[in-house]
């Protein structure tokens, strides 16, 4: 399974997906977060919420491209979902493959060894940002939105971020419920 996922994502990355200059991407996201911070008066809890909401709306749409490009079917287990999200999803859209750790049928964690969103970032030294801002919180929203479209209601959040001085950047995803009633009829 994981071998074929690798082959699939290699092929997708090389031949199928459109790419942009990574600095353009990083700087765009950076100025967006910085502007949000200014607009919201450095209320980082609100900034986090806004980033998540944006990500959520991205996720709802992004998932269609994911399936149109990959031809993958529905995952049978939440473990499989974790693998696919890390090895195909992140690879396809960000060209990184986070490590999947602490995985069971209800949750998993993604450890991002490299984070293209945060490349040149130093958090502001105002005493709050290090404790309150989750700089890459858009990813949380993307995961929630995308998984909701395949009828998985999840709770996702960052638990650590190297920007804050932690050792790793870890994003935790917990399964709340499978929205069984909303699975489209016609599947097995």
């Amino acid at each position, binding site marked *: 399974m994981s071998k074929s996922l690798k082959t699939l994502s290699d092929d997708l990355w090389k031949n199928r997906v459109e790419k942009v200059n990574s600095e353009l991407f990083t700087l765009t996201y950076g100025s967006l977060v910085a502007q949000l911070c200014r607009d919201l008066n450095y209320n980082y809890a609100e900034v986090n919420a806004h980033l998540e909401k944006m990500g959520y709306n991205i996720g*709802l*749409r*992004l*998932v*269609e*491209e994911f*399936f*149109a*490009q990959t*031809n993958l*079917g*529905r995952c049978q287990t939440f473990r499989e979902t974790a693998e696919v999200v890390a090895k195909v999803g992140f690879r396809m859209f960000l060209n990184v493959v986070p490590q999947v750790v602490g995985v069971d049928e209800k949750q998993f964690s993604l450890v991002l060894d490299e984070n293209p969103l945060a490349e040149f970032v130093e958090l502001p030294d105002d005493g709050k940002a290090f404790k309150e801002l989750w700089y890459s919180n858009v990813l949380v929203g993307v995961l929630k939105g995308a998984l909701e*479209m*395949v009828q998985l209601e999840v709770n996702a959040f960052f638990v650590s971020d190297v920007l804050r001085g932690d050792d790793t950047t870890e994003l935790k995803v917990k399964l709340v419920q499978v929205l069984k009633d*909303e699975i*489209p*009829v*016609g*599947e*097995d």
Partner: protein
Amino acid sequence: MQIYTLYILNKSGGLVYHNDFQPGLLQLTTNESLVMASTIHSIHAISSKITPANAKTNDLYNNNKSGLRIIETENFQIYVYQTITGVKFIGFANDTNLAEMEVWFKKVYLCYSDYVMKNPFQQLDMPIKNDNFDRIVRQTV
């Protein structure tokens, strides 16, 4: 392969897109198209429901495993393709087969994911009015 018409249905069975590719087709009224779309949606669900539990399915990439796939008449066929998120693509065609249509549907799904979902002003599950999409879909026929 001759493809006459494409319908796109949102996950609740509402018709959100309709495009005719061949000249001189007899037209349904908007209301009749809506009825047609929701009827196909319903029959699809019913046929899925009455599929025997041990029935074998063939292994197409289509996520429409147990629902209605084809309606045939003497002169044309209607094919139904469903994505994992529940969007249905319905193709009216002739001189073709399921496998060939499958390939076409996948192309259309790619166009949809690019030109519809990436339009920031497209509201989800709402009717699609999009000239770029019209053009690009026409090129796949």
